[in-house]
C-alpha cells in the first residue's frame, strides 16, 4: 500500500441544554418522558403556527462560540432547509445557512495542534423514528431542541487527532455549560469527512462523509477503517466515490448510504417568520464574560503540577477540575486566614506555593487512581467532598499522620454520604488509621523492643552489616504500636539507637 496523506474535517452537532426548545416554550429535557409529550403545536407544525425564538439559546451560542475562540457575528439570521421525512414536521429545518451566529475560531488539541473552526450555526433538531416490521413510529420530543452545528476546517490529519479534536470539542462544550454532553444519548454527534491524497499532493482527494458517529472511539475507528478502504481503492488506480457512509460499531465497517447524485436539494430560503438577530457588542461581551474556565485554561494552569497523562484523564471530569481549582484557592488570599485548620498550622517548608503543589499533586493522584477506579465514581462526581476536607487529608498524609494506604481509605470514605460530613482527621481516628509520630512515645516502644531478648540476634546481625534485618525490627515496632507507628520514623530511631 502506498503512503497517503489523510485530511479530515468534522461537523459536530451539539444539543443545547436550554430550559425550553428553540422555537417554543415546551420543556427541552425529554429524558424519561413519554414519546410526543414534549411537543407544542409549533413543534408538530400545526398550520398557522409561527416560531418564537428562545433567547437563552442565543446566549448559549455566544458562550459556545467563545469556548472555541470564535468571533460572534452581530448580525445573523435563520433559513429554511427543506426535506420530506416524518422526523421533520414542518417539512423544513430552521437553520442558519447564509448568516451563522458563530464565526471563525479554533480548538487547540492537547498536543498544541490548532484545528480551525470555519463557523458554527444554530438550528433545530429533528424528531426520532423507530422502525418495526412494516410500520414506523415517530417521536417528536426532540424536534427543535436547539443545536449548534460546528464545522471545522480540514485541519485534522490522523485518526488520533480526529479523536482528540472530538474530545476537546466535547470538553469545551461541557465546560461552557451549554450541553449535558451525554454522548450515549446523542447530545453530541459527529459527521466526519475523510479524503486521501498522495503525500505532497496539492489537491485534496475525493471525500467520503461518515455520518452520525456518537463516540470518540467510533470516530477514531471509522477514520482508521476509511484510510484502509480508500487507500486500497487508490492503490488500484480507482477513484473514491463521493458519498455519505454509515458506521457500524458492531462490524467496525463503514457502508455506503447515499451518493452525491442522490444528494437532496434542500432549496434553502431565508426564514420569513423570524426577524434577523442583531446583537450589540455589549450584549455579546456580557454573555462572553459568563463563560466558565475552559479546559484549555485548566490545562495551562495545572500542567506544571499534575503529570500530563493524569491531567488529560482528569480533564474529562469538569467537577474534578473545579475542585482542584477550589483547593488551589485555599492557598492564596483571604481563604487561608479564615481560621481554618489549614491556615493555623505552620507549614514545614514555609512555602505556600510548594505546599499547594504537593496538595494538588496528591489529590489529583487520588482522583485519577482511586476515585475514578471506583465503581460508584459517576455517582460520587455529583457530590464531591469540600476542598478543605480534601486539603486536610493531603496535609495529614504529608505530615505522615497517615500511611499512603490509610490515606486512600480515608479519601474514599470522604465520598460516602454517611461519612462526608466529618473531617478527614475524625474519619482517620474512627478507622484507627492515625500513625504515631510522637517521638517520645515511639522511642519508648523502640527501647522496649531493643530490650527484648528475642531481638538480640537481629540487633547483632544488623551491626554486623546485615541491612535487611532492620525490616524485622521495624515490623516489631509496628506490631507493638498496633500499626500506628510511622514506619519511616520508627526506622530512623532504630538506626540511631543501634549506631550508638
Amino acid at each position, binding site marked *: 500500500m502506498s503512503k497517503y496523506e489523510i485530511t479530515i474535517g468534522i461537523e459536530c452537532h451539539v444539543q443545547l441544554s436550554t430550559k425550553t426548545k428553540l422555537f417554543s416554550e415546551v420543556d427541552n429535557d425529554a429524558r424519561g418522558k413519554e414519546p410526543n409529550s414534549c411537543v407544542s*403545536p409549533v413543534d*408538530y*407544525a*400545526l*398550520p*398557522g*403556527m*409561527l*416560531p*418564537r*425564538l428562545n433567547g437563552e439559546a442565543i446566549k448559549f451560542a455566544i458562550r459556545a462560540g467563545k469556548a472555541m475562540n470564535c468571533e460572534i457575528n452581530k448580525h445573523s439570521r435563520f433559513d*429554511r432547509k*427543506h426535506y*420530506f421525512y*416524518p422526523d421533520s*414536521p*414542518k*417539512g*423544513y429545518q430552521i437553520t442558519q445557512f447564509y448568516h451563522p451566529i458563530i464565526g471563525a475560531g479554533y480548538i487547540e488539541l492537547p498536543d498544541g495542534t490548532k484545528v480551525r473552526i470555519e463557523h458554527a450555526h444554530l438550528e433545530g433538531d429533528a424528531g426520532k423514528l423507530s422502525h418495526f416490521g412494516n410500520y*414506523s413510529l*415517530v417521536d417528536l420530543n426532540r424536534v427543535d431542541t436547539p443545536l449548534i452545528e460546528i464545522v471545522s476546517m480540514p485541519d485534522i490529519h490522523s485518526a488520533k487527532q480526529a479523536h482528540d479534536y472530538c474530545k476537546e470539542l466535547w470538553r469545551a462544550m461541557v465546560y461552557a455549560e451549554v450541553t449535558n454532553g451525554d454522548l450515549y444519548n446523542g447530545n453530541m454527534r459527529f459527521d466526519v469527512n475523510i479524503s486521501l491524497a498522495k503525500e505532497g499532493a496539492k489537491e485534496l482527494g475525493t471525500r467520503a462523509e461518515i455520518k452520525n458517529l456518537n463516540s470518540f472511539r467510533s470516530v477514531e475507528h471509522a477514520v482508521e477503517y476509511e484510510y484502509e478502504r480508500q487507500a486500497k481503492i487508490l492503490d488500484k488506480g480507482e477513484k473514491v466515490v463521493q458519498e455519505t457512509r454509515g458506521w457500524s460499531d458492531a462490524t467496525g465497517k463503514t457502508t455506503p448510504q447515499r451518493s452525491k447524485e442522490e444528494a437532496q*436539494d*434542500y*432549496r*434553502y*430560503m431565508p426564514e*420569513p*417568520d*423570524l*426577524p434577523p438577530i442583531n446583537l450589540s457588542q455589549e450584549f455579546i461581551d456580557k454573555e462572553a464574560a459568563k463563560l466558565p474556565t475552559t479546559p484549555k485554561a485548566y490545562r495551562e494552569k495545572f500542567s506544571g503540577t499534575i503529570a500530563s497523562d493524569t491531567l488529560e484523564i482528569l480533564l474529562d471530569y469538569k467537577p474534578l477540575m473545579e475542585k482542584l481549582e477550589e483547593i488551589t484557592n485555599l492557598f492564596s488570599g483571604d481563604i487561608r486566614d479564615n481560621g481554618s485548620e489549614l491556615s493555623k498550622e505552620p507549614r514545614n517548608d514555609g512555602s505556600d506555593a510548594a505546599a499547594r503543589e504537593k496538595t494538588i499533586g496528591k489529590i489529583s493522584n487520588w482522583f485519577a487512581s482511586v476515585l475514578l477506579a471506583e465503581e460508584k465514581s459517576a455517582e460520587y462526581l455529583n457530590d464531591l467532598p469540600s476542598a478543605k476536607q480534601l486539603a486536610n487529608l493531603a496535609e495529614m498524609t504529608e505530615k505522615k499522620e497517615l500511611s499512603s494506604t490509610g490515606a486512600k481509605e480515608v479519601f474514599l470514605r470522604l465520598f460516602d454520604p454517611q461519612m462526608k460530613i466529618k473531617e478527614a482527621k475524625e474519619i482517620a481516628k474512627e478507622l484507627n488509621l492515625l500513625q504515631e509520630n510522637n517521638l517520645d512515645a515511639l522511642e519508648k516502644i523502640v527501647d522496649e523492643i531493643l530490650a527484648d531478648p528475642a531481638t538480640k540476634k537481629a540487633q547483632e546481625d544488623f551491626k554486623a552489616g546485615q541491612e535487611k534485618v532492620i525490616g524485622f525490627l521495624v515490623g516489631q515496632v509496628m506490631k507493638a504500636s498496633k500499626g500506628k507507628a510511622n514506619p519511616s520514623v520508627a526506622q530512623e530511631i532504630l538506626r540511631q539507637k543501634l549506631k550508638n
Partner: protein
Amino acid sequence: MKIANKTVTATQLVKDALEKAKHFEEYNIFTFLNEEGALRKAAEIDAKIAKGEKVGKLAGVPYAFKDNFLSPEGPTTASSKILSPLVSPITATAIKKLEAEGAIMIGRTNMDSFAHGSSTENSYFGPTLNSADKTRVAGGSSGGSAVAVALDIVEFATGTDTGGSIRQPASFNGIYGLKPTYGTISRYGVVAMASSTDCIGFFTKTPDDMDLLMSITAGQDANDLTTLPDYYETSEIKEVKKVGIIKEFDNDSVSSELKSALNKKVDQLKKQGYEIVELSMPALKYALAVYYIIVPAEIASNLSRYDGIRYGYRSDNITDLESIYTSSRNEGFMDENKRRIMIGNFVLSSGFYDAYYLKAQKARTLIIKEYEEAFKKCDVILTPVAPNQAFKLGEKINDPVSMYLEDVMSVPINLAGLPGLTIPAGTGENGLPTGLQLIGPRRSDKTLINFAKELA
C-alpha cells in the same frame, strides 16, 4: 354597526344573520355555519346585558371569518381537501381579540384553497358567487367574506391579503376592504400562504367600522415575531393634501369602467380642493413577476407541512413512505396549489436561487424605494385595485396567466408591506360595482381610513 343592547338582543342579531346566511345559500358563502355556538354565545351576552354587566365593544355583533383562521369552532379547512378534517386546538390571535369584545362568529367563509387565487373558484367546495351578479366571480381569495358583508349577512368579516385577496373582492362587491401595514395584526393562528406578504384585514360597510376593528385587533404579539410594536391607536392622522395617481397604471389593460371610476374620483378630489400629483413608478412593472417568484417560494415552503402524517388528509393509495407524501399531496391539493408549489420549488432549487429568488428580492427592494420616493411627493396614492370588474365564472380559471394579471395593481404594495384600503367607487354602466384603493406609507393605516371617511 348594530351592537346588542337592552332593546336589540344579541340572540336576535345572530338569528337574523343565520337566517340571511341560509337565504343566500346558493351563493356558496360559508364552509361552516356556527348555529349552535353562535346562539349559545349570544345568550351569554344577553344574560350579561340583562344583569347590567359590562360587555365588549362588539357585543353580539355577528361576523364571519375566512376559513384559514384557526379556532376550535368548526373545522379549519382553508377550503382545501388536504386540511379536512382539522379541528384546531388553537384560536388565532385576531379571533381571540374580536371575541373578547363580544363579536360572534356565525360562519367560516369560502376562499380559494390556501388563498391561492383571485376568484374563489379554486375552492374545494366550489366557487362563491358575486353579490351583484350570480354569473360572476366573487373575487378572491377572500370571496366568501366579501360577499357575506356585501349581502349584509354579517356586519364585518375577516380576510387575508397576500397579493390583493381582501382589496380585490372588496372592489368586486362594492364594500370597504383593508390590507393593513405588514405586521400590524398578528398572523398567529392563520394558515400561512406567503409569510413575508400575508396580512390579516377586514371587510366592512363603513370606514368607521374599519377603524373600530383595527383598534381592537392591531398590536404586537409575542407569538408572531414579525408584528410591529403597537402603533395603530397612537398614530396621528395626517391631513391629506396631495393625492398621487400612477401614470403607468393608465394603460390599455385597464377597463373603461375602471378608468371612468378613477377619473370621477379624481374630479371629485379636485373639486374638494386636493392636489393631484402624477407619479411615474417604472419599477412597478416588475412587481407581478417578482411576486410570482417570492410568493410561490414561500408557498412551497409553507405547504411542506401538509404531508399526510400528523393531521389532515391521508390517501388510501399508500404502499410506502414516498407514496404517503405523493398520493396524499397529489389528491389533497388543488391544481393551483400544485402549480405554485412547483414554481416555488423551481425558483428555490440549487443553481436557480440566485437567478430567480435573489434577483426578485433585489427588485423588491427597488419597488420599496420607489414607493418611498413617491410618498415624498404625495400623501396617499389612488389606483384601481384590479384592471377589471368582476369577471364571469369560468372565464379565467383555465388561463392562469390571465388570472395572475388580475393581481397586477394589487401585489406591489404587498411586496412593499404598505397599507391599502379599497373604497367603493359606485357602479359602472354595466351595473357592476367598482372599487379603488388608497395606498399610504407604512403605518398610515389610520390616515387612510380617515381619508376614506372624507371621500365617502
